[in-house]
């Protein structure tokens, strides 16, 4: 049974967020509404997941898993947040589980002396790469993307998630906190540390063109 406050919150999200209205239609059995939600969010979801798991194919699999969970949860859906916040909360859980499983798998591989697939090159290996000493504006787009990706990969999982939600989803601290199950202050610290880390890694490159 919903309280009056919860009912009022649900109504307000329904009013301001068209995606919440679509999800309510999915709840009522409208399959076309679900397809519309997939179309609206697939690229956004894969972009975030790809930068978390470093693998495009895996990101697509995880995105499909997220949509499946959304569909399975339709009957009990209550609009208690923006739809994107709800969707990325599921995505955060799915990605965290996948990363934990990958870490366990990696540990097993290391313990038996096999070399596991590590898609992200550590920053140390970048240091031995030939230094361009080239201003950033003259670098190839692909190289720049590679350097930024390396910088992102050097962040911890939570910092990376917060950065993705802030940069790509333009989420407020409050929504990021809700998505990641943290306090607003924790998100503030997390983003502050993440952005300072990125600055320290990327600034020498931006200033001098020296690859980190």
């Amino acid at each position, binding site marked *: 049974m919903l309280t009056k406050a919860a009912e009022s919150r649900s109504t307000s999200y329904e009013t301001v967020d068209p995606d919440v209205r679509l999800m309510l239609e999915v709840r009522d059995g409208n399959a076309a509404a679900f*397809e519309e939600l997939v179309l609206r969010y697939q690229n956004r979801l*894969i*972009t975030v997941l790809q930068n978390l798991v470093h693998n495009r194919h895996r990101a697509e699999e995880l995105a499909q898993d997220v949509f499946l969970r959304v569909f399975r949860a339709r009957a009990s859906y209550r609009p208690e947040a923006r739809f994107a916040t709800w969707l990325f909360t599921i995505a955060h859980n799915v990605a965290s589980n996948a990363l934990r499983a990958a870490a366990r798998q990696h540990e097993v591989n290391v313990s038996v002396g096999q070399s596991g697939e590590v898609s992200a090159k550590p920053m140390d290996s970048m240091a031995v790469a030939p230094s361009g000493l080239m201003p950033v504006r003259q670098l190839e787009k692909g190289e720049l*993307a590679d350097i*930024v990706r390396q910088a992102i990969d050097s962040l911890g999982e939570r910092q990376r998630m917060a950065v993705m939600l802030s940069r790509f989803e333009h989420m407020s*601290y409050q929504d990021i906190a809700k998505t990641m199950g943290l306090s607003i202050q924790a998100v503030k610290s997390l983003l*502050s540390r993440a952005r300072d880390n990125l600055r320290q890694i990327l*600034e020498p490159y931006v200033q001098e063109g020296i690859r980190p």
Partner: protein
Amino acid sequence: MSDEHNALEQDTMVEELVSYLDGELDTESNRRVERRLAQDADYRQRLRELQRSWDLLDHLPRADVDHSFTESTIAMVALQTSDDYQHVQRTDSRQRRLMMGSALACAILVFVATFSATRWWAGRQDRKLLRDLPVIENIDQYRYAESIEFLRLLEREGLFVEGGLDHEL
């Protein structure tokens, strides 16, 4: 101590600037940051660096999937949820069979218990008669006894065992 203090000050400064760039400061804090930006060159420089590195994230790859991804997602969801439905149906059917089996077993158990209890109850009189048969058969002889003490004496001497009294008499 001084290093720690400096580090803390740096952290606070970065946190403040990041919140400012993200539009997360209240009006008063916003004004305070802007006043300091106007006066402090290092503070301004740090803001620029943070903004510049943040803008570089635009170079990260963005997904742009085609319609086949949408179609395969919808198909996968339809297939999975259909499997879920069949699984639920199978589970329901199994549960129904289990419940019917349990109900049948209970009914048989109740029938057997009732039948046994009825038989036991009905045979109660016959069992009493059977137990008293030796006495009934010799009731005429027992009438000659003068008292219950005399009968107890006879019992102690083993005369009530089957055929005992006939033998004596």
